[in-house]
C-alpha cells in the first residue's frame, strides 16, 4: 500500500505531461489548418483541437483509450479490425516460441551443469550469442524459412525462441548450481543416484531462479514475435499493425497497438508471477 500513492502520482504526472506534449506537438498542424481556412483560433479552441485530430503527431491519451475500446470491445473478435484478433496472432507465436525457448534453455542448462565440456565450450557462446543483435536477422529467418516451406507461426516462434532461451539458460545454470556442497554430500550419504539428486535436490532449489528467468524470457519472446511480424508484409499481428500504422500515418492505431502489446506483456508476466507464488508456496519456499 505504501507504493500506491507515489505510483499513482507518477502516473498522473506522466498523463499530464502527455496532454501537454500533445498540445505542443499538434499545435503547428492546427494553426496551419486555421490559417488555410482564414479563421482565428482562441487558446481553448486550439487546445481542444490538438486533442481531437484525425492523424495527430501525438494522440491524446483519451483518443488512444477510445480507439482501444472500439477495436477490442465493440468489434467482433474474429474481425480483422479487432485488436484482440491481432493480439492473439502475436500471442500464439510468442507462446510457442516461449515454450520452445524454455525447453531449449532447460536442456542446455542441464547439459552445462552435468558436462564439463559443455560448460567450457557452449557457455561462452551462449553469452556471445546475445551480444549479436539477433532481431536484425529476423527478416532473413522469416524469408528463408518461408522459402523452405515453413510458414505461419513457426518462423516467428523461432525468433522468440532465440531471444527467450538465453535468460532461461543463465538462470537455470545458476539455479541448478544453487545447492551447497553440504546438501550434495548429504544426497550422496543417502546413496542417491544422479537422477534422484537432480529431481529431489537440484530441480526444486532452482525454482526461484527458473521463475525469475521465465518472466524475462516471456517479455523477450513477445518482442521477438512483434519484430518477426514486420517483414511478412503486415498481414496480421501487433507488429503488422505497427508497420501498417507507420506506413499510413495512423498514429492512433500505432499507439493502441503499442498499448495492447504492453497489456499482453504485463498480463503474461503477472500470470507467471502468480504461478510462481502458488508453486513456491506449495513447495514451502516462500
Amino acid at each position: 500500500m505504501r507504493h500506491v500513492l507515489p505510483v499513482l502520482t507518477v502516473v498522473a504526472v506522466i498523463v499530464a505531461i502527455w496532454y501537454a506534449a500533445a498540445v505542443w506537438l499538434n499545435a503547428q498542424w492546427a494553426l496551419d489548418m486555421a490559417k488555410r481556412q482564414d479563421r482565428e483560433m482562441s487558446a481553448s479552441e486550439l487546445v481542444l483541437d490538438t486533442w481531437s485530430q484525425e492523424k495527430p503527431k501525438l494522440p491524446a491519451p483519451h483518443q488512444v483509450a477510445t480507439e482501444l475500446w472500439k477495436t477490442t470491445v465493440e468489434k467482433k473478435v474474429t474481425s480483422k479490425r479487432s485488436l484482440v484478433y491481432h493480439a492473439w496472432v502475436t500471442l500464439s507465436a510468442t507462446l510457442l516460441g516461449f515454450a520452445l525457448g524454455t525447453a531449449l534453455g532447460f536442456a542446455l542448462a542441464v547439459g552445462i551443469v552435468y558436462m564439463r565440456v559443455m560448460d567450457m565450450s557452449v557457455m561462452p557462446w551462449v553469452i556471445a550469442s546475445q551480444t549479436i543483435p539477433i532481431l536484425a536477422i529476423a527478416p532473413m529467418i522469416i524469408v528463408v524459412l518461408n522459402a523452405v516451406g515453413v510458414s505461419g507461426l513457426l518462423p516467428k516462434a523461432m525468433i522468440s525462441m532465440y531471444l527467450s532461451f538465453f535468460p532461461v539458460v543463465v538462470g537455470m545454470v545458476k539455479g541448478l548450481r544453487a545447492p551447497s556442497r553440504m546438501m550434495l554430500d548429504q544426497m550422496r550419504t543417502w546413496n542417491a543416484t544422479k537422477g534422484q539428486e537432480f529431481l529431489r535436490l537440484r530441480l526444486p532449489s532452482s525454482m526461484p531462479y527458473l521463475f525469475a528467468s521465465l518472466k524475462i524470457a516471456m517479455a523477450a519472446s513477445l518482442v521477438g514475435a512483434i519484430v518477426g511480424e514486420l517483414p511478412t508484409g503486415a498481414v496480421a499481428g501487433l507488429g503488422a499493425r505497427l508497420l501498417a500504422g507507420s506506413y499510413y500515418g495512423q498514429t492512433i492505431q500505432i499507439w493502441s497497438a503499442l498499448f495492447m502489446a504492453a497489456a499482453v506483456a504485463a498480463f503474461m508476466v503477472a500470470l507467471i508471477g502468480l504461478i510462481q507464488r502458488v508453486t513456491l508456496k506449495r513447495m514451502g519456499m516462500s
Partner: protein
Amino acid sequence: MWVALGIAAWALGWALNVWLAGRARSRATALAVPVIFGLTIVFVWEAAVRGFGISPVLLPAPSAIAVKMAASGGLIWEDFVQTVIKGALSGYVIGCAAAFATAIVVDRFDFLRRGLLPVGNFVAALPIIGIAPILVMWFGFDWQSKAAVVVVMVFFPMLVNTVEGLRDTSSMQRDLMRTYAAGYWTTLLKLRLPAAMPFIFNGLKLATTLALIGAIVAEFFGSPIRGMGFRISTSVGLLALDLVWAEIVVAAIAGSAFYGGVALLERAVTFWHPSQRGHG
C-alpha cells in the same frame, strides 16, 4: 565427401574439447575450448553447405560470406558508421547519461523512488521497440530518430540499475561518512557512487545490446539509403543473403566489441569488487 569431412571435424573438435576440459583448468584451456567449438561449427557449416549443395539463396557458406565482406568493404563501412556510430553510440551516450542524472534525482527523493521504480520496472519489461515507428515519424528518417529509439530503450534498464546501486551501501558505511562530517555530495561522490559502480556497469552492459538492436530495428521503419538495418531488409528482398550475412557478422563483431569494451572498463573501475578479484 564434404558431409563425411564435416562429421569427422565435429567428432575431432568435440574429442579435443573433451580432452582439454578434462585437464586442469587454466587461462589457456578456458580460451581454447570455446574457440575450438566455434571453429568446429563454422567448419561444419561450410561442409554442410557444400556437401548438401544448399542454395546460396537459403544459406551461404562462411567462405562466400567472407569473400562478400572483402569485396564490399566500403559499403559495409558506410552502413556501420550510419547505424553504429551515429545511431547506436550517440543514443547510448545520451540515454545512459540521462538515466544516470534521473537516477541521482530519484534517489534524492524517496517519494519519487517509490513511485518511479515500479513504473520503470514495468516499462523495462515492455516491448519498447514498438515505439520505433512513432519516433521515426517524429524525428525523420536519418540517424536522429534511431538515436531517439536507442535513448528510450536504454533509459529504463539503466535507471533501474543505477537506483538499485545507489541504495547498495550499509547504514554502517553511511554513519561512518556522517562521523567524518561529510555532506550529501561528499557522501555521494566518495561512498555511494563508487559502491553503485557494479550495478551501473550491469546496466551499461545490458544497454549495449539494446542499443544495437534499437538502432537496427528502427531502420526497418524507414531510413535513408544506408544503414545496416536498411541493408539487411533490402538485401533480403533481393535474395542477396551473402550481403545480409556479412552485415550480421559486422553487427555481431560490433556488438561483442561494444560489450567487451564496457566489460574492460568495468574491470578497471570496479577492481575492488569480489566478482573481479581472484582472476590474478
